[in-house]
């Protein structure tokens, strides 16, 4: 799947092109100093080479800082994974029209060979050029080591490597599906890149958990908190995560509700997944709140090492509380993500199940109107507009859905905007099924 993605950030592009220019300029002046040809005149060549060298050095200092501060350095860690496939692709696959063995994504911009090459570039060639170049600038240093000879030879060899690199670098650009688009990407920052569904999904879930108004928690096998998100903390009226992590879950219940919680915990620790149970919590300030709880075991290999789950606040819709108690045996927290035009970017399995849909690809890229009937759509439009335009968050909205087979379902919906920088890029949230509520209510 392709997605237009902001892949090269502004500094990254500035750095790339400035570095490209400086390195080429250094090469041109450098080989004049090497007496390979005459262009600027020796004195000018030396002067310009020096100026360019200092400029590059300053740029590199900033770049190192940038790489570590934004974490982009990880992109350059070489890995042996798929190196063989990549080599095989360039040697044989490309001639047979085989697909690229690796996909470019925003989180993995470089193929394994690029990683390896750029790592060598950054860890060996550039440092070698800088170190030898600096020694070159200070005769008092190199006269201690018997002259500039070795230094000069290494420096020149480094320049040869850079030229060879440049040739290959430019050529390999043409092996991209759209070379011009790749160049454009290095200028504008945006490129159509593959999205790794699993990775995207994981990333979405991660940010959804971090940013959503659904509370997330994770317990170890003793029932102590390992992690909670901001929404969880907010629901428990707690400001400092440190007050929760490492504490036992019993902290969050009135004595009369302790047994219920430990029962659920026990079930999960035996491998069961518990979904959609309305429960009553005790907040930090001893007030009472209500939420719907899901809990599932966390595996490491085959061993259950703890549990995790979501909570969605329902304190405000107290009137539903009783009904909910009977609901959602087979419900689960469904997750969805819409872009700012209302198209689905991601949904989870539980969502798909609720919508009676078995293929995610039937949903992704579709507009949300697909999943609503006409009468409910108006309300959803309002919600969407409010989230996208005003950045409001919606919690505990009872909504109806139109499933794939045309039947209707009922769920509680949460919605919140997600951002890139300060710009709202779309809406995401969770849904909890309450369809059965009515039926069971009727039975009663």
């Amino acid at each position, binding site marked *: 799947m392709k997605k237009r993605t902001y892949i090269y950030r502004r500094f990254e592009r500035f750095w790339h092109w400035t570095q490209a220019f400086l390195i080429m300029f250094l090469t041109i002046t450098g080989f004049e100093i090497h007496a390979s040809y005459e262009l600027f005149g020796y004195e000018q060549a030396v002067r310009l080479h020096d100026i360019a060298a200092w400029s590059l050095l300053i740029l590199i200092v900033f770049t190192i800082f940038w790489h570590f501060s934004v974490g982009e350095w990880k992109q350059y860690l070489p890995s042996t994974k798929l190196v063989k496939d990549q080599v095989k692709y360039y040697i044989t696959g490309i001639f047979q029209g085989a697909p690229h063995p690796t996909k470019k994504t925003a989180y993995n911009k470089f193929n394994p060979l690029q990683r390896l090459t750029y790592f060598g570039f950054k860890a060996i060639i550039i440092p070698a050029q800088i170190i030898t170049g600096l020694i070159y600038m200070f*005769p008092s240093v190199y006269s201690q080591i018997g002259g500039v000879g070795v230094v000069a030879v290494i420096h020149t*060899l480094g320049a040869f490597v850079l030229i*060879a690199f440049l040739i290959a670098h430019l*050529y390999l650009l043409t092996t991209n599906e759209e070379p011009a688009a790749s160049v454009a990407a290095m200028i504008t920052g945006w490129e159509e890149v593959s999205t790794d569904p699993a990775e995207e999904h994981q990333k979405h879930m991660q940010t959804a958990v971090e940013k959503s108004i659904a509370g997330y928690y994770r317990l170890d096998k003793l029932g102590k908190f390992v992690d909670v998100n901001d929404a969880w903390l907010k629901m428990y009226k707690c400001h400092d995560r440190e007050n929760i992590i490492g504490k036992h879950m019993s902290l969050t219940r009135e004595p009369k509700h302790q047994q219920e919680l430990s029962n659920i915990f026990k079930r999960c620790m035996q491998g069961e997944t518990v979904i959609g149970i309305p429960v009553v919590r005790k907040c930090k300030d001893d007030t009472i709140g209500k939420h719907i709880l899901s809990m599932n075991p966390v595996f490491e290999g085959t061993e259950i090492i703890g549990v995790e789950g979501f909570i969605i606040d329902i304190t405000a819709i107290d009137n539903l509380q009783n009904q909910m108690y009977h609901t959602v045996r087979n419900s689960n927290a469904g997750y969805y993500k819409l872009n700012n035009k209302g198209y689905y970017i991601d949904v989870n399995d539980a969502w798909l199940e609720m919508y009676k849909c078995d293929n995610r690809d039937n949903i992704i890229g579709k507009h949300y109107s697909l999943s609503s009937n006409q009468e409910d759509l108006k309300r959803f439009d309002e919600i969407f507009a409010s989230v996208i335009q005003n950045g409001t968050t919606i919690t505990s909205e009872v909504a109806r859905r139109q499933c794939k087979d045309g039947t209707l379902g009922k769920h509680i919906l949460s919605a919140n905007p997600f951002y890139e920088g300060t710009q709202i890029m779309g809406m995401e949230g969770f849904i909890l099924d309450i369809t059965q509520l009515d039926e069971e209510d009727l039975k009663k």
Partner: protein
Amino acid sequence: MQNNSIKKKSIGLIISLVVIIVPWIIIFAINDKITADNLPDGTRNVNFEKDTLSKQADHSKFEVLKQQFTSPEQVTEACLTCHNERQHEIMQTAHWNWDREVTRTDGTKTKIGKRNIVNNYCIATNTNTWKCSSCHIGFGYKDKTFDFKNPSKVDCIVCHDNTNSYEKQPLGSGYPVTKKEVFEGKTLFPPDLNYIAQSVAKPTRNNCGKCHFFGGGGDNVKHGDLSSDLFKPNKQMDVHMDTEGNNMACVACHEADRHKIMGKAYSVSSANEGRMECEKCHSEAPHNNSTLNNHTAKVACQTCHIPVYAKGVATKMRWDWSTAGKLDADGKKINEHDKEGHHTYSSEKGSFEWKTNVEPEYVWFNGTAEHYVYGDVIKDPSKILQMNIFFGDYNDPKAKIVPVKIHRGKQFFDPVNKILIVPHIYGHDSTAYKTGLDWNLSAQVGMKEAGLPYSGKYEPIETEMYWRINHMVAESDKALTCKECHSRNGRLKNLAGFYMPGRDRSILFDIIGVLMISFSVMGVAVHALIRYIKRDCIACE
């Protein structure tokens, strides 16, 4: 919102471009402004002040100088009545002694100087001292019987005469003429000793020049950078002595302390002491350019700032004694000149080569030198014999690259004893080579006088003698450009032992580098070609 975002992006793009491009425009714009060449005359760091003191005493008022002098010694005695300690100073200098105590490279302490060093011009003083000593600062230094302890033999006025009328007779062993005399076409008058004695002062260029510009018996013969051109040079000839500019006297740089004058000529000096350095006035970082200043650790100022020497009068580059002795059909001595009038052959002396505007050769030099002294054994007569050896190399922190004149020649050595012959050249008897044209006789007499063995055999040997080039400093814009050394066949192409960018490269690694690029290009070409050929197959699939 969309419009806003595009606007924002284009502003961002423009800012980025400006940030990238503007510094470069600025650098290119100011680049020319910050070059050292645009400095006013490169005089940024000159630490020199002209001596503006008036004359310390008016010598015309001293009674002792009003007496009627009949001999130059009387003038000296008169000087010493007041300056009654100066004779001791003078008598310790090499100007007087023609030697000084040194430690030679083999560790022995000995006195060496004009008295016992062999050169490849007129070869040696020895029996010829009576002629050479017309440039001695004394009276009557004819041979080794001269009394170096007699203060009245010191010639004060040869250096301190400011009338420019005092002149020693070229064959007078240090004495001026006593009556009007014509010598080699020049009329010499007996000096007016009273007039001269009453107008003594600090030495002028004339005082120094009349000996030092004529070393080797003629104008600019020896040094190459010291010629009569420096009596009244223009700026193009010498920036320091330019009569319309700095107009500096020799002693402005060659300062003296108790008559011990700064500056060394390594044709006779050995030790790294009492040297003159440009840095004294100009500092070690005189350029407004750190790259140039970086050079001063290893490159002497003279190397770049004296691009050529012998800018006026030609200097002798080669003297081949082995061709001497030929006579013409009538049995007469031969003298030949080239079309510029340079003496190219003489039966009495051999053949000569002369040159003007000579590009110096360059050597490493740390301020110490060794010399060929009477009796030194020649290790390998098949090799060129260095009459003086300049020490130093790249790894020697005291050594710098200096420009030199190398005077090449051929003279005779005794192949049995493996020592240079110090022949008897000048004299009116037939044992003097100039008169008798017989090397054997001249060697016998000369070697006997020098106390050296002589086998009776003599063979020619190639020689080299090194002369530092220090004068005739060019205007700053005439200094060497980078390229003149930093190129494959530049001026330093023969100076080994260090890597110089632009001159040197590792052929091996250059080949590796070029191969690397070639493989890269070929790899790309082959890969692209296969892709091009296979494109239809891919389309079918």
